[in-house]
């Protein structure tokens, strides 16, 4: 493979942005800053999804995650957070050991992933499939046929979650 394709460039940009913004989530002292970093991270992830031809998921990512969920987060942060109280992180022995383990895990995973054979993407030769892949029409079709029952179950789950949240967060009367 000669040269660098635009896709690869875009991937590199997005990946770097994701890493930076997610590091921001972890290391920002202020919770608001963390939340804003997370929003940024979600946007860049949506970009990666587009690179992966997952237009619907990308749209959902922006709408639901970066939109709804993060607004909720910000709302709660503003409701609760008092002035910063002491260090935002702690580095006891167990935490450092756990973090080291995670780094080791990342190393192990990477060592496996780099050895994976390059995919053939044989299915892309079917132009029809490529044209519909990841579109709202295609995802919706599958969602309301094959995944109809889980879809309904999830709607129920959301209902229960809303009720639960109301009950739990309600001030004791």
């Amino acid at each position, binding site marked *: 493979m000669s040269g660098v394709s635009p896709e690869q460039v875009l991937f590199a940009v997005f990946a770097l942005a994701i*890493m930076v913004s997610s590091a921001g989530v972890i290391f920002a002292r202020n919770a608001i800053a963390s939340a804003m970093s997370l929003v940024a991270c979600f946007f860049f992830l949506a970009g*990666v999804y587009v690179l992966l031809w997952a237009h619907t998921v990308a749209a959902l990512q922006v709408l639901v995650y970066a939109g709804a969920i993060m607004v909720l987060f910000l709302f*709660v942060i503003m409701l609760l957070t008092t002035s910063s109280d002491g260090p935002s992180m702690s580095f006891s022995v167990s935490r450092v050991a756990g973090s080291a383990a995670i780094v080791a895990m990342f190393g192990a995973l990477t060592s496996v992933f780099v050895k994976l054979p390059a995919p053939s993407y044989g299915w892309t030769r079917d132009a029809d499939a490529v044209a519909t892949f990841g579109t709202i029409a295609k995802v919706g079709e599958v969602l309301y046929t094959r995944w109809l029952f889980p879809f309904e179950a999830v709607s129920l789950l959301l209902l229960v979650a809303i009720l639960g949240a109301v009950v739990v967060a309600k001030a004791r009367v």
Partner: protein
Amino acid sequence: MVPTSWYLILAAALFCLGMVGVLVRRNALVVFMCIELMLNAANLTFVAFARERGDINGHLSAFFIIAVAAAEASVGLAIVISLFRSRGTVNIEEVHSMKN
């Protein structure tokens, strides 16, 4: 073409960053955000494999994960609110109700 393994490595990095955040942050809200990061890492792998195999079901899995994450966030935040009401803090180091 970007090989799937690149996406996987990106997802692994995201996941590990999220997990480190869960371990070291003291603010319960930030811990929650880190959990969202980890969920997104999982989503990324689903979508990446969907692209490799031309299988739309991966997108559906991501869709459901987003829905469940929304439910989880609403309940979790409600818990944080009631925790704040009773303890006056969102610092999980000060919440040791699992002891004894």
